[in-house]
């Protein structure tokens, strides 16, 4: 029963990301959107935490990334960019969705 986790809060302002990662088991996925997209960028104080998750697929919502001026070359290796349709597809693909709002 795999889970799609979503985080839409900045990792520097709230603990949603940290808590989510602590509860994400192997085979689940994490989608970052809205202010959560900053967690997908390289060289931040949470980059190691995000890059270090084992067995969890990482996704980020492209339009939110673009709005914030975060170019794709800033992304941590292994993060996949999806659009709104991709978001919907992920939600359908996984058994459950947990929104860490």
């Amino acid at each position: 029963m795999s889970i799609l986790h979503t985080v839409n809060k900045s990792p520097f302002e709230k603990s949603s990301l940290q808590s989510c990662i602590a509860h994400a088991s192997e085979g689940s996925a994490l989608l970052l959107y809205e202010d959560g997209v900053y967690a997908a960028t390289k060289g931040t104080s949470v980059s190691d935490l995000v890059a270090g998750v084992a067995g969890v697929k990482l996704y980020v919502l492209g339009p939110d990334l673009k709005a914030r001026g975060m170019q794709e070359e800033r992304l941590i290796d292994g993060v996949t960019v999806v659009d709104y349709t991709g978001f919907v597809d992920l939600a359908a693909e996984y058994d459950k969705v947990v929104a860490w709002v």
Partner: protein
Amino acid sequence: MSVTKKFMYLNRRPPYGTIYAWESLEVVLIGAAFEQDVSLAFLDDGVYQIIKGQDTSGIDMKNFSPTYSALGDYEVTKLYVERESLEERGLTVDDLMPLTWEDEAEDWAEKDSIQLISRAELAKLMDEQDVLFSF
């Protein structure tokens, strides 16, 4: 005779996810009419407000990042950016929009508005203010 006070706006939130960044900018522009000694500080996630290359066409929201370039016209010419906040986010000053103002007294010479300062320096500047607004 009116006394000029030192006003500092602390910008701590990223743009778009919440309304804070835009609200702060509007208050600054409206408050500029009172001709006080105004400065803006960008710290914590507030540094994301002035990242260059923002494009909101995909999220159906107004891209208000160009408005920061109008601050000089409103005689808001001191924009302090906290170095540690940039570093914690993997950013450098080159990732920021080049914000300038034009000095009418020097034949519209273009001058940088952004000043990179340390956390300790910002703390000291905050102590020197008469009024602080935090967004």
